[in-house]
């Protein structure tokens, strides 16, 4: 049963990839950003299952983005795969370091410390000339193994690359949720004591989850940097983190697929809102968030109620 959903998922990715050349430009761009953000949301889902909601995931997102931008600008390296890998590695390192501290906190303190860290980066970025300060700076379009695509092909190439990263992440995280370490997220939320007294180091487990989430966010940031061809300090601001949390709530934490469905739904909602209600798109989104939070199926609390599985035996996400 689990294998079937993985196959379906991969099939979905392949189908979307095949359809891409037929899609209009604006849709491909939007989809690329949606895919990138979905990775960040996937990381948030991993942490949310354990009962943790970081208010500063933008930290790793911005690190991934700025890594790409800085490497492009100062070394002339333009290969997309290498750039994104660099973003991933740097955000991974940041998450490992930050995790030593962050993994020891819970609940609102975890959220606040995470927020503080992202705002520290923001403060540094805004005030540093060489990093572009408030305006940020532009990012050159990337090359792919030496090939420099033009026009519509340029968008498609990045889109396919984003799709590949997403497919790989979706697969790996699905497997992770089925592993021993990955399925202990809900138990962490329910009884850390029991886990500790079964021999599990909860702090180390949370640290691992933070590193995974941070790396995913870094890849997302790197992809966005290449897609919009610009980075600025706002990528580390609290409103960016807030946006990711927003999407995560919309998406729900029930499955890996939720991250992608939620992210796409959000990008579409946002586009529609911009078009139809330009002066009031935040009212629209805010209301959507409220409706989502208020009218969830019953559960222990709305957040955690959403995590309740429909079938009793599926402890991992599908």
């Amino acid at each position: 049963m689990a294998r079937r959903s993985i196959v379906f998922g991969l099939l979905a990715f392949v189908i979307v990839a095949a359809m891409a050349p037929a899609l209009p430009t604006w849709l491909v761009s939007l989809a690329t950003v949606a895919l990138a953000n979905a990775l960040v949301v996937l990381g948030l889902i991993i942490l949310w299952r354990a009962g943790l909601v970081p208010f500063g995931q933008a930290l790793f997102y911005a690190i991934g983005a700025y890594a790409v931008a800085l490497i492009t600008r100062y070394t002339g390296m333009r290969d997309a795969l290498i750039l994104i890998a660099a973003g991933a590695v740097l955000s991974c390192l940041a998450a490992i370091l930050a995790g030593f501290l962050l993994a020891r906190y819970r609940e609102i303190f975890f959220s606040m410390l995470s927020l503080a860290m992202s705002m520290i980066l923001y403060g540094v970025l805004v005030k540093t000339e060489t990093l572009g300060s408030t305006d940020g700076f532009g990012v050159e379009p990337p090359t792919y193994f030496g090939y420099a695509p033009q026009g519509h092909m340029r968008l498609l190439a990045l889109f396919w690359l984003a799709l590949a990263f997403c497919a790989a992440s979706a697969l790996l995280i699905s497997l992770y949720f089925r592993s021993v370490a990955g399925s202990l997220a809900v138990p962490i939320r329910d009884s850390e004591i029991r886990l500790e007294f079964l021999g599990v180091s909860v702090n180390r487990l949370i640290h691992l989850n933070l590193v995974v989430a941070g790396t995913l966010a870094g890849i997302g940031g790197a992809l966005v940097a290449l897609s919009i061809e610009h980075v600025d300090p706002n990528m580390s601001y609290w409103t960016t983190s807030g946006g990711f949390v927003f999407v995560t709530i919309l998406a729900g934490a029930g499955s890996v697929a939720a991250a992608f469905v939620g992210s796409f739904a959000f990008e579409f909602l946002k586009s529609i809102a911009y078009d139809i209600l330009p002066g009031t798109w935040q009212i629209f989104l805010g209301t959507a968030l409220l409706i989502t939070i208020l009218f969830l199926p019953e559960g222990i609390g709305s957040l955690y109620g959403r995590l309740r599985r429909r079938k009793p035996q599926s402890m991992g996400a599908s």
Partner: protein
Amino acid sequence: MSAILVVHDLEKTFGSLVAARAINIAVPPLQTVGIIGANGAGKTTFVNMITGHLRPSRGTIVFEDRDITGRPSREITRLGIARSFQLPQIFSSLTVLENMCAATAIAHAAGGLLRQALTPLHSPGTMAESEAALELFRITSYRHARAAALPQGVRKLLDIAMAVAGAPRVLLLDEPTSGISIEEKFGLMEVVMSALKNRRITVLFVEHDMDIVERYADRVLAFYDGAVIADGPPIETLENPRIQELISGPKLKAAAQRHA
């Protein structure tokens, strides 16, 4: 080995408060020890020191000829000492079977975190073992019930079942029958003690119900003001007038015979 657990000159002070003083006990394998004492007498401190939750101020704890003094709880659990809790620590969002599977999988998942990240949770072996554990503790009929919705007795049993998933040799039960109605107490203890005997586990249990202690303990440790003031067979210890004065109160023979 002669004694599976040896505690030597164990002490714990919090500032000027002496929570435990000069405790010396040797527990032979497979013995069932009942720990009694008023609240604040040092029973929980004692249990917490053995399970690694508290570091002793002085003294040593030796388990299976290995010094475990001051080691963290995780390590002590992995070495073979487990515990259950007065308020059962179970995973409320999951079903009883999922709870048991988690405990079993963790018990089998040796190695570091990264290894655990790569090991699948559900293997046929884990399932079979979990079902067997539920069977042993007589809670099989609850297997698909969500843990949050269980009656208190079943929660206690699940807590204990999970604690022994890792095949510990010593188990500390913290007030196993607290919160259970009088009619159900003995039934619960019967299931628990026969399951633990089946698994060949040395048991130390903290209890306030003297009838339970008398019925199930091979040996009674009485705590008072941080020290062990009596250590002997249950009937003798509970008949001791000093113990009756300080801890248990006078014995009501009628009550004991009703449940024997």
